[in-house]
């Protein structure tokens, strides 16, 4: 190897290591530039007040809203740093920004919106309509996330957020926990801000929001209240149907459950046949799996929607058995249970449809289903859909399969003649 080729090779090596150095330096500069600009607007976490919930009620002055803001504060002397206590402040203003401005003057920390979990819309605002103006800040300002939950309060949102709960939790966090545990019950819809805006965008579907309410002792739940006539618990039950952003009516528990079946939103449900009059033996069970499909069916002249609900249930409780059953009797009883559960599901679905027809608002999204399955027909229907909602033919096909009946193949029964009176 001659001297020139050695020089050439070492030159190449130098060039290649220089390139590597330059590339490394460049990537380093990229991160350096990002970190330098990040220091500019930095806020120490100790100086922030994490916002957990907002409530909207009508203000006393026309055109104003009472905006209640619930912040979390680390509990002094708490067992862990995660323990929080509430700091709830309200301000009457014509815009949410203005309300934050008023509260910020009194707060010793800067409100941080990125932690917001729940927006509670008071019944009066919901009925008056126009709360989309209040939500605009939440969907526009970059600190917020569209994954926060929306609920309607029975009564005032301020009262819900100011509740002193027996569990000592923040009402906003408590509501969030109930909603996120909602899959266990599948008895009310889980509505995030993003979902609400998506439904609003469909035009044909009426949005629906779950309803939150304060629960006093004796209001179907019994507990030892610290002060008489003061609520210490929160419950989510039923839903509110909206026309745009105006509350039209509330759905009761049965109608909301019907909505959940038809919306294919049932994960695990507790279900019982106690109210069925036609059978003497009653069953309670847990939905293990459920699937709702729909078909747009035509009989030549009329077009209708057929819902097919397929549900798998585990029986947890059998009531009213007065004798020990043989194996074959048990199989028959399971068939009876399947029919009874199917009847209950169908009743819930029918009550949701009945409500939709009464209200004339398509909260079940039937218009969207028609559009999805038969867009050509939908084009001819969509202009007069508001008039058609109440009369559009809907049918059900509900089938239930009992997956298992728990740890026992029979129930405890009295000896013949004992305890019958």
């Amino acid at each position, binding site marked *: 190897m001659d001297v020139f080729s050695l020089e050439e090779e070492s030159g190449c090596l130098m060039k290649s290591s220089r*390139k590597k150095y330059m590339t490394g330096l*460049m990537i380093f500069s*990229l991160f350096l530039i990002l970190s*330098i600009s990040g220091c*500019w*607007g930095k806020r120490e976490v100790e100086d922030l007040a994490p916002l957990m919930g907002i409530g909207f009620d009508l203000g006393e002055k026309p055109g104003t809203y009472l905006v209640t803001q619930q912040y979390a504060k680390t509990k002094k002397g708490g067992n862990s740093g995660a323990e929080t206590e509430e700091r709830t402040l309200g301000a009457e203003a014509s815009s949410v920004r203005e309300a934050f401005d008023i509260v910020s003057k009194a707060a010793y920390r800067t409100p941080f919106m990125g932690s917001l979990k729940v927006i509670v819309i008071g019944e009066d605002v919901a009925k008056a309509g126009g709360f989309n103006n209040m939500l605009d800040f939440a969907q526009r300002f970059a600190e917020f996330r569209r994954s926060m939950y929306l609920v309607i309060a029975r009564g005032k949102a301020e009262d819900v957020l100011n509740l002193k709960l027996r569990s000592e939790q923040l009402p906003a966090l408590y509501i969030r926990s109930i909603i996120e545990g909602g899959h266990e019950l599948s008895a009310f819809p889980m509505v995030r801000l993003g979902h609400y805006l*998506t439904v609003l965008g469909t035009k044909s579907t009426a949005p629906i929001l779950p309803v939150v309410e304060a629960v006093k002792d004796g209001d179907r739940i019994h507990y030892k209240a610290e002060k008489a006539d003061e609520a210490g618990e929160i419950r989510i039950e039923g839903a509110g149907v909206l026309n745009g952003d105006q509350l039209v009516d509330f759905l009761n528990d049965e109608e909301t459950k019907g909505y959940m079946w038809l919306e294919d939103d049932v994960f695990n449900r507790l279900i019982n046949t106690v109210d069925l009059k036609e059978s003497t033996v009653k069953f309670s069970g847990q939905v293990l799996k459920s699937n709702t499909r729909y078909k747009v069916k035509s009989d030549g002249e009329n077009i209708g929607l057929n819902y097919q609900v397929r549900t798998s249930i585990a029986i947890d409780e059998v009531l009213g058995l007065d004798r020990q059953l043989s194996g074959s009797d048990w199989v028959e009883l399971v068939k009876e249970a399947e029919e009874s559960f199917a009847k209950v599901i169908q009743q819930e679905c029918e009550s949701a449809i009945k409500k939709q027809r009464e209200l004339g608002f398509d909260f079940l999204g039937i218009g969207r289903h028609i*559009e*999805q399955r038969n*867009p050509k027909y939908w084009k001819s229907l969509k202009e007069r859909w508001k008039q058609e909602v109440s009369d559009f033919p809907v049918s059900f096909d509900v089938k239930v399969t009992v997956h298992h009946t728990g740890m026992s193949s029979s129930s405890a029964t009295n000896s013949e003649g004992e305890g019958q009176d």
Partner: protein
Amino acid sequence: MGTTFLPIASLTTGVADRDGWMAVLPGFALGIPYGLMIMSLYKKYPQKNLLQMTEMLLGKWVCKIIGVLYILIMSYFGGLLLGQIGDIYESSIMPRTPIEMFYLGGLLLVLYLARSGIEVFTRFTEVVFPLIVIALVLNMGLSIPRIEQGELMPILGQGIIPIILAGSKVTPFVMEYILFLAGILPFLPADKQEFTSLKKGVWLAVFLVGFMNTLVVLMQIVIFGPSETVNLVYGLLVLGKMVEVSRTIAGVESLFLGAWFGALVIKICAFFFVVLWSLESLFGLKGTKSHLVVGMIFMGVALNNKRGPGLVVEIGLVDNYLIFPFASLWILTIWTFSHWKKKVGVS
């Protein structure tokens, strides 16, 4: 690809509604014939960029006019993209940082890359591109729990025409790439074997970016629905903000924005190079002074332009009414002229 995935969902969905995602690949596919036209020209005139070919085929003055237009469009567009860096960061995660800091940061990196040369630039893209793809895939993958039922249906509910119209909104994006290709030609290898792999590269680039963008549009439609997809200025950033892993991890959009910053720098730097090469071809200008002058022009455009939705609209206007007609006419004319000359035997 640098910035296309930010406005593409809003643009295509605005025209083709739920079928917007179907318009992306056909729209990008138009880039293939143009890319192949450039390759065939390069085969005939190796080591020449498109401006030099224009001079050889159409004469000095026509070349000067086209060249000046090319420089103006690329400088303005590059400046707008620099402005978009600040706009994205300011409106999403760093509202209190002066917007000029983002312009400056981006421009410094672009100047550094331009100064280091095309090889360092390509190595930079080699490192950053996988990060962009990983960030995009992660962003979309982690957004799957937010998918809304049935938002994609009905497919072809509006027929095929809106898809074609939406495709025309996508085509200018490919033309940006084609215009960069027109400038980078002299740096490409010219032997026969490499030439075949270059042609394959055109196909690969168009389909890879087209596929990624299709996914981006599809995810936004199934998560936001068509109406919200159109409303959102930077839908992908909102998607990033919705990512939550259990109750533990949220706010990962800042990480995604790091990768997007790299993507934007690549795109701006590509246009920066195009302007530098054109200045050198037309006026023989090169060296540090030309780098600084072009940098100042980019900065000036970024500082003096609109922000927010106005900026997105302005970028769209430049894409649709300047880049697309300019690139398609220029390349088609040169290619046709070169074939005609070959046919009639004019050298």
